[in-house]
């Protein structure tokens, strides 16, 4: 045991003295989650829009004021005819036009229903979607405020109907994905690199000649990364809870336990890679190409699996990350417990055992 502690201490020296691995370990998770949380979202700010108001009454004025007061839009142009819409878009600055029908205010009170057309520049579909959603939100908000004052059910009917706040939802989708990538990166890539490094330097030979058993060497190399990965998982969850207000509907304990399981799966993969690769370079390449790309493309993190061609859907089943994403989405967003995710959990356990057995076999062959 004492030998073991010395070994782990040495591993930590390696990690803390290497600026690159320090950055990957602690800089990456925070940078990634911030990137996905803030930059790569459908959030909009100060979008230039134009208004075509056929009604010009108190109601439309109030709605326009409300829109211009929001930080999301700035009203750049008032147009008067439908024929002006097209040229406005063609100039490229204006991303949306709001078209209030004639007698908007009157219709709202008399007919209890009024129409507004939201036209968006869909050359950038994500932004167009977000704009529509935001304007809808503002309209609904206005609607609620007038319904509160008067006990009548006035309705503004926008032509598009979407669920409120796609922007927040995209963050919620990204968090499980980012967490998966980070855990994979830290656990699989970093361990495979650190093991192949010993091979490259020739220290692995010295370790194998020492009384330490091969499995002790491997476990000694892996244990520090288990600790660091757990810390990373915790940081990501905390960031998403406190900065992005992401809910954790399910049990935090279950989330932790499943994360540890996935960390072990990734470590097993890392060990397997290190039995194949002989240099740090090739370990890194195999990790990036063999692990990161499939995680990003095929795990359902960015592209929904259900909309992939069938062969890819089948391939996605062998990617551990896919199952982990299902699990954490379930726990964090739907609040489900083990009865709903036991199947995915079992698959991950099975994969882990498989990778470990395979690594042991490969390792033995190498020693012969």
């Amino acid at each position, binding site marked *: 045991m*004492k030998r073991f502690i*010395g070994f782990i201490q040495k591993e930590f*020296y390696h990690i803390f003295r290497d600026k690159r691995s320090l950055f990957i370990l602690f800089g990456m998770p925070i940078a990634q989650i911030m990137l996905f949380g803030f930059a790569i979202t459908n959030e909009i700010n100060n979008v230039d829009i134009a208004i075509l108001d056929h009604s010009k009454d108190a109601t439309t004025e109030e709605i326009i004021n409300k829109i211009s007061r929001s930080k999301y839009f700035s009203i750049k142009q008032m147009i008067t005819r439908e024929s002006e819409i097209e040229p406005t878009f063609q100039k490229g600055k204006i991303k949306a036009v709001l078209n209030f029908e004639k007698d908007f205010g009157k219709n709202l009170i008399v007919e209890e229903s009024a129409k507004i057309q939201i036209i968006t520049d869909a050359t950038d579909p994500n932004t167009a979607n977000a704009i529509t959603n935001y304007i809808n939100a503002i309209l609904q908000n206005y609607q609620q405020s007038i319904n509160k004052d008067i006990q009548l059910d006035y309705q503004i009917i926008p032509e598009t109907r979407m669920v409120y706040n796609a922007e927040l939802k995209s963050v919620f989708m990204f968090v499980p994905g980012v967490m998966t990538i980070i855990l994979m990166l830290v656990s699989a890539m970093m361990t495979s690199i650190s093991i192949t490094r010993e091979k490259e330097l*020739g220290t692995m030979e010295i370790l194998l000649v020492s009384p330490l058993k091969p499995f002790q060497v491997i476990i000694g190399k892996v244990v520090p990364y288990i600790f660091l990965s757990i810390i990373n998982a915790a940081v990501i969850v905390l960031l998403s809870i406190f900065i992005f207000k992401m809910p954790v509907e399910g049990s935090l304990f279950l989330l932790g336990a499943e994360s540890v399981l996935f960390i072990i799966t990734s470590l097993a993969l890392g060990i397997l890679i290190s039995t194949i690769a002989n240099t740090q370079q090739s370990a890194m390449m195999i990790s990036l190409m063999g692990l990161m790309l499939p995680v990003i493309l095929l795990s359902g993190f960015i592209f929904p699996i259900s909309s992939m061609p069938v062969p890819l859907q089948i391939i996605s089943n062998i990617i551990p990350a896919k199952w982990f994403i299902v699990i954490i989405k379930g726990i964090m967003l739907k609040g489900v417990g083990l009865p709903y995710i036991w199947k995915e959990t079992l698959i991950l356990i099975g994969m882990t055992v498989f990778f470990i057995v395979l690594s042991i076999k490969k390792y033995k062959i190498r020693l012969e």
Partner: protein
Amino acid sequence: MKAENVIEVNGLTKAFGDFKAVNAISFEVKKGEIFGFLGANGAGKTTAIKMLIGISRPTSGEAQVVGYDVFTHPESIKKNIGYMSQRFALYDDLTVNENITFFGGIYGLSRLKIREKRKQLIEELGLEDIANKLVGSLPLGWKQKLSFSVSLFHDPKIVFLDEPTGGVDPITRRQFWEMIYKAADRGTTIFVTTHYMDEAEYCDRVSIMVDGRIEALDTPKKLKQQFEVDSMNDVFLKLARNIE
């Protein structure tokens, strides 16, 4: 096994498919001896060493190292030997002190013992000023000496040196061999491979491997007489030529 022998090898063979990297070699090494294990590149030296230090299983034959069988007790062998490979093998990103502590630790030495011996070693090598510097910043000669000292740190009965002086200057090589003599005087058996034939002259006995077999084994003096030449270099050349 005779009492004075620390290595006894009989018909040891390692085959990879049809190719016999080591072909039925037999020899013994006495306690406290400096045994030179020579051979051209690819002659099978490293494969033979790997079998003796317990990280490669022989295909056939017998071998006992420090009284333990390489087939049945490789773990007991590992505890009692030291090893220094041809590639430099300390951690560059650990300090001198940390390296010594780590390698002492994996051989199961107690903290107290490590501290005591480490202090002694640092003084002996005159490394007091750089004990807390990273090994990566030391010149190669220093690293090699340190590496050798680390392989002796747990007082092994035999130390295996696989081309320990590759790439160092003649002065450092000279100093290195002084260290080897010192260790041998203390009763440690030295099993060393080298390319440098002048180093072969420093050994008590020398074996020369050609194509997986040991073709000659004796003291350097007797080998020179046997082959009627003046230097080990000529012995080596003559032997290699005869085989061809």
